[in-house]
């Protein structure tokens, strides 16, 4: 795989993370309109989504480290 392909793959990962983060942001904006009884599950799902983005970003870091070792 060429460098440009690796960079494109990395950028695609970042783009997905930004999209997911947008969803988290939108979800946090709807907290004030959430019923009291649903707040626990709302926070739970925010935490799960955040864990997921964090894990995606850690994988992107792994890819950068591979790129650095391969071409640096």
């Amino acid at each position, binding site marked *: 795989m060429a*460098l*440009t392909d690796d*960079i494109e793959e*990395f*950028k695609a990962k*970042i*783009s997905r*993370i*930004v999209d997911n*983060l947008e969803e*988290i*942001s939108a979800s*946090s*904006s709807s*907290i*004030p309109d959430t019923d009291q009884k649903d*707040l*626990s*599950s709302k*926070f*739970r799902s*925010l*935490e*799960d989504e*955040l*864990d997921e*983005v*964090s894990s995606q*970003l*850690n994988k*992107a*870091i792994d890819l*950068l*480290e591979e*790129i*650095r070792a391969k*071409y*640096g």
Partner: protein
Amino acid sequence: MKFSDDIEYLKRIIRNPFKTLEEVDEIASRLDDSCDADEFYSTVTNLIDLCEEAVSNFGCISSQIQEIQRKWGFASVRRLPVKTITDWDKWQRGLQDKLPRKENYNQDLKTLLNTWKGDNWGFFVEQQLFFETWHLEGKMWTKEDIDSPYLPSVITRPKDPRTQDEKNLDQQMLRVTNIEHSKVEYDAVRKKDHLNPSLAKEVAEFKLRETSTRINQAKTQAEDLARESVKQGKPSRITYYFYEQPSDKKVEKILEIYKTASEKHSGARVEVKFLFAEDGDRK
């Protein structure tokens, strides 16, 4: 600070990683074959640093979410990262697949299996918490104490035998200490040398979904943790380790107990966390 202020702050800090990630995208676009080796290396290193900064931002957001839940009385119910634990699949099989078919259960068998299942779950959590940092009952130390034919073979027992002094100390530390004549014990108490200095006391309870409603035990524990919090001017923390995900109703019931104890002892703060391994059989 009002609930709405905390939410506004949360919304603000969620925006923080966007700027960092935009910068990452922009810098990555500049990387191509024309970069010389040094420039390439330093640019990628810079990208890694920026990504790590964003990961750290995620950590802050997560802490704020947990703080809001603690402060405003919502339960933090999370899945244990069991999927990353070596041999978890074997554990799960050991706990579930070796059991007889459910339609063949009678009440006695159900009770017996539930006890074994609870013991197994306790062994597993003991293993995850580590004897080095927690006071634990320590059943796992002696193989002959375990009579469950369903115990998974993946348990890693501590190599060194536990001394009588260590056993005595663990037993003493597991007792609820602030209540006179109480026979209630915790399943785990964080050792003082390993306790986060911002906490007064940290304890853990291991539960199956079915055994979650030991209300009197929870009440005594809540009293103890609230008193310890007031005494030291710091929050106490209890983490419930459920094998099967507790229902919202059960979580609320437990939270109510800690809320009542905290209100009774002015200034007390008790953090209650729930971790679970499996969604559970809802059939």
